[in-house]
């Protein structure tokens, strides 16, 4: 123990006596460890950014929609692939659509997994006008679950009643921007009032029953002024289907109950609808969840992180070889010292220990400096990316251990060479 302690002091002394060389030796380790830490931090930051933006889009939403059936890839005689050719006309007909009955059946089959169903039917863009006031809207028929699935906040009034849905009432929920433009922002005034909206060259009058808070899209930005902004006006789903003379949807979304594995539920939904479309030549049902998309992206990110870390690991390896090189030089320089120590009674083991300790200390100090550098770089990069992240304690500990292992590994050969020196020759060395 005393020998190790003395060797540590000795190693620190010899490093201090050769500061510039020690720093240059450490450089490889510093860069290697620093880049590993920085890359891992940036990787964490990217993961955070992806998962938080996906969550804002509703990670536990499953989108179920029509998808054209594809035939197997055709291979011609020369072996070239003609891509996947699509069957059918490409446009969904009334007979292909997902009916309300089909959705209801799904709900009855999986009551434990489904929180709400969100379906919508777009009537179209239109304008509402009274006197000199006007507002642009997009009229969308929605199911009861739509408001839950899309996190819509009501400022006044509330969602449609069951009577509104079943009776296909001409009622509407408008945005606060719409109220700003049409009722000078007076929410009380808006509720119960009627608005006439022109969509597809038809004038339809709706009674306002609720006002929701308009949220700006999280992606991109609008150059439009509040006056010209187009906001959604929600009407009961059945009302919209009546207006459009349709009985089905091309897609809807399912909000799963918490704790449901949406990735496997996606497969269950696809299997559930398979019999309905078995005889349909053109379309089938496909479902996908944000969660599966997120996990795919996470996989991709972690693969990239691992790949870059491997490159950084190679830098670390080169750094280790640098340490070995300098240790060999240092041993040659200190041949007489080694001879003297042997004459004074140092065993081969204690000489070996001395130089391994020195290599480990170089690598450890390099590792610590690398960690400091990596944490700073990683934090700066992560902050620039907008999703702050810091290196985990375990990764710091792991890199420190790894750098010390490099010290032992690359220090062993030079140390062993020193230990095996012949004391007579070493003492005579000029």
């Amino acid at each position, binding site marked *: 123990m*005393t*020998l190790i302690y003395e060797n540590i002091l000795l190693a620190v002394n010899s490093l201090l006596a050769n500061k510039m060389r020690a720093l240059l030796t450490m450089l490889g380790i510093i860069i290697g460890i620093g880049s590993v830490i920085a890359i891992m931090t940036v990787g964490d930051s990217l993961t955070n950014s992806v998962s938080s933006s996906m969550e804002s889009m509703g990670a536990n939403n499953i989108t179920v929609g029509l998808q054209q059936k594809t035939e197997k890839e055709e291979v011609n005689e020369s072996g070239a692939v003609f891509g996947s050719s699509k069957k059918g006309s490409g446009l969904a007909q009334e007979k292909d659509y997902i009916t309300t009955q089909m959705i209801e059946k799904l709900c009855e089959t999986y009551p434990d997994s489904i929180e709400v169903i969100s379906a919508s039917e777009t009537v179209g863009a239109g304008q509402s006008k009274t006197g000199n006031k006007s507002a642009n809207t997009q009229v969308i028929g929605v199911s009861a679950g739509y408001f839950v699935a899309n996190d819509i906040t009501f400022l006044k009034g509330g969602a449609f009643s069951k009577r509104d849905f079943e009776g296909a009432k001409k009622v509407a929920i408008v945005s606060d921007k719409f109220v700003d433009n049409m009722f000078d922002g007076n929410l009380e005034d808006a509720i119960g009032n009627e608005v006439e909206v022109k969509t597809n060259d038809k004038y339809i009058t709706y009674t306002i029953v609720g006002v929701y808070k308009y949220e700006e899209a999280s992606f991109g930005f609008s150059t439009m002024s509040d006056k010209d902004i187009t906001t959604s006006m929600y009407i009961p789903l059945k009302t919209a289907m009546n207006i459009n003379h349709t009985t089905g949807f091309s897609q809807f979304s399912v909000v799963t109950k918490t704790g449901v594995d949406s990735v496997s539920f996606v497969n269950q939904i696809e299997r559930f609808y398979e019999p309905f479309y078995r005889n349909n030549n053109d379309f089938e049902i496909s479902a996908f969840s944000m969660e599966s998309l997120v996990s795919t992206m996470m996989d991709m990110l972690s693969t990239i992180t691992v790949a870059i870390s491997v490159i950084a690991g190679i830098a670390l390896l080169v750094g280790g070889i640098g340490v070995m090189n300098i240790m060999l030089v240092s041993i040659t320089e200190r041949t007489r*010292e080694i*001879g*003297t*120590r042997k*004459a004074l*009674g140092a*065993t*081969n083991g204690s000489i070996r220990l001395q130089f391994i300790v020195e290599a480990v200390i170089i690598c450890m100090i390099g590792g610590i400096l690398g960690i400091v550098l990596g944490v700073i770089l990683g934090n700066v990069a992560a902050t620039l990316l907008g999703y702050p992240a810091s290196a985990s304690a375990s990764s710091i500990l792991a890199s420190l251990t790894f750098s010390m292992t490099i010290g032992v590994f690359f220090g062993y050969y030079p140390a062993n060479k020193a230990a095996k020196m012949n004391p007579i020759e070493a003492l005579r060395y000029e």
Partner: protein
Amino acid sequence: MGTIIQLDNIIKRFYIGEPNELQILNGISLSVEEGEFVSIVGASGSGKSTLMNVIGILDRPTEGNYILDGVDINAAKDYELSKIRNEKIGFVFQTYNLISKTTALKNVELPMLYAGKKKKERIERSKELLDLVGIGERLKHKPEELSGGQKQRVAIARAMANNPAIILADEPTGALDSQTGRMVMDLFHKLNKEQGKTIVLITHSNELAEETQRIITIKDGNVIEERKGMGA
């Protein structure tokens, strides 16, 4: 008084089995008694360095027996030689061979460190020895901050650290001017007289050898003369 060094028909050959095989020591027999101050004299090429390496067990003889302070060197395993060197031999080199970058105190501590002595004991003994050689006030000085004579005194203190059976001094005054060389020789006489230390001085200088109690002259790998010196 017992015999400390007992060399019996020591032969040392190099490049054994090769065309350039070389025999340096041709069967040297000599003994040194406890408390003796002996000098081994010889011109360069006489084989005195090889003899010193054998006596200092830095090298094993090819043939012959060597008993150092009751220990049969031939029977000792390689790893045991370090321990024997550490405990029984104190080296003093012509070029001092102090560990640079560490203090005089640390240099004197070194043999005790390898012997596994406790820190407190090491420091006490080192201070005592540095006082004995007359540079007790330069404990914290590094070799580069010391003069040649001071360096050699630190080296002598270091050689004494584990209270060895013999001090083996190889041309200890070779790199010093005559005045400081005189001081180093005086120190050896003092250690021999006051501490009863057995000292083997290897030198090419007859003048220095005359001061010792016995002079052993080596030539071409043989002891050609053994006689009493002025110090006897």
